[in-house]
């Protein structure tokens, strides 16, 4: 194994070992453009990725919107929710949510607590067609039921989200105004954030569907209708709620409905022991249920 600098001298054949090492370095140098090319080819084949995302960009929202001046939150009143499911339908139509009934950015659950303390939870198609009384609360059950109420559910936009730091490519992040997003250009669809979320708020967009920005196969979730709240509107679910059960607002504004609701009611969050600090508070939630 002669490793001296004599390879260039005439008559000296480079040893086979050195030749293969050079080959290895050449291959390494060729790998990076090959990977870039492979990425472009993959994008072209799958027809998604950053190009589509760029194409989906529409006009910018109100430029006066300053994320650092807001802190969005919900207060959900389970004592007034009537389980009509208008919110679920509104969300699906507003946010291009997949039509599959098991994919919802927001949904309504019915919690039925029996006399002996057993809790039963049901959510037919996420509650999008309401809760027909015959199926969900049959009359012959009535004597056994101690309490029953509807619980609208959504992404909690946690202050300490367990979904953001698990992403291997930093595709999901939380903004200053408190919303957790998924960057569809970076998401690889591994599903780690979906198993990490304690509240079941995320899903991978299935075949045949896309996110509102036209990307398939990536993770999607509730964004508190960011495109509406930055324009001064309410999220679609809060807009259509007939029972005033979804109280939305800016925590930084003491006069906003959510601040008032949090001040005037006894509130709790779901799964406080996990330390996620959710930004969705519940009024009248009795049991720690799923």
């Amino acid at each position: 194994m002669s490793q001296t600098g004599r390879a260039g001298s005439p008559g000296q054949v480079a040893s086979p070992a050195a030749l293969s090492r050079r080959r290895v370095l050449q291959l390494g140098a060729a790998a990076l453009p090959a990977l870039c090319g492979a990425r472009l080819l993959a994008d072209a084949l799958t027809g998604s990725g950053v190009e589509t995302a760029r194409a989906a960009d529409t006009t910018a929202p109100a430029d006066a919107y300053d994320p650092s001046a807001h802190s969005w939150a919900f207060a959900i009143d389970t004592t007034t929710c009537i389980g009509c499911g208008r919110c679920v339908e509104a969300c699906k139509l507003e946010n291009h949510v997949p039509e599959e009934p098991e994919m919802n950015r927001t949904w309504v659950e019915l919690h039925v607590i029996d006399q002996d303390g057993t809790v039963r939870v049901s959510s037919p198609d996420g509650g999008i067609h309401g809760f027909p009384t015959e199926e969900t609360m049959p009359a012959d059950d009535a004597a056994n039921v101690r309490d029953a109420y509807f619980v609208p559910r959504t992404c909690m936009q946690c202050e300490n989200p367990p979904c953001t730091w698990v992403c291997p490519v930093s595709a999901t992040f939380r903004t200053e105004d408190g919303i957790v997003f998924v960057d569809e250009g970076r998401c690889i669809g591994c599903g780690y954030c979906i198993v990490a979320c304690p509240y079941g708020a995320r899903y991978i967009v299935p075949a045949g569907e896309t996110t509102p920005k036209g990307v398939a196969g990536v993770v999607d979730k509730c964004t508190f209708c960011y495109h509406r709240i930055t324009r001064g509107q309410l999220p679609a679910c809060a807009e259509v709620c007939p029972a005033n059960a979804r109280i939305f607002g800016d925590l930084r504004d003491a006069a906003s409905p959510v601040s008032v609701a949090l001040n005037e009611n006894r509130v709790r969050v779901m799964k406080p022991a996990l330390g996620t600090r959710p930004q969705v508070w519940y009024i009248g939630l009795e049991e720690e249920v799923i």
Partner: protein
Amino acid sequence: MTRLRAALARRRPTSRTGVVRAFLAGVGLFAVLVVGLVGVAVVVPWVYGEYGFHPEENARSWAALTPQYADTAVCQRCHEPQYAAWDGERHASVACESCHGPLAEHAATAPVEAPAGSLSIGTPDEGLCAICHEQSPAKPAAFAQVDLAEHYAGGRCLNCHDSHSADAVRPPEIPHSLARLPECVTCHAPAGLKPVPDGHVESSDAACQGCHKRPTAGQ
């Protein structure tokens, strides 16, 4: 450690040209590193489009989406009668689009010259009333709910209830059979019979009895 030092000792440049060569190699390596990092900074925005390292831009792209639901104030611009009937009444907590669906695009593109209500857009389904107002133990007791099996079963909700003001006109009770009455009287008789509301279907005597109940003893 000493083995490493011995190995390195053999590698140490032994002449001035060796030292110069080693120094140039170090500078060259550093230059390659700098070029590489600058190259990465240039390549990454190209690979990731306009997002690169800035999640704020991604957030702004989410904010740039187009809302599908307008606000009630937008509906008022063209549909003043319905808005006036709705505003301040018992259905005032129900947004227009809660029943009529997303209509932002309609509001933006509807022809101004067409009279409001002439197009059939967003007319809610008949079953929509039941979803909210069907009686259920899980709904708050103060909420207006009825057992649909008992409440004028077979009739249309909108025959008696105005959808916007939520006012209900209870149909009067007809004490006698409508058979053998002249056909005109069935509809056009004065006091005792309510005016026919829009969309009242043609029906036989038996069907009418669903709403216009024949009085029983003691009623």
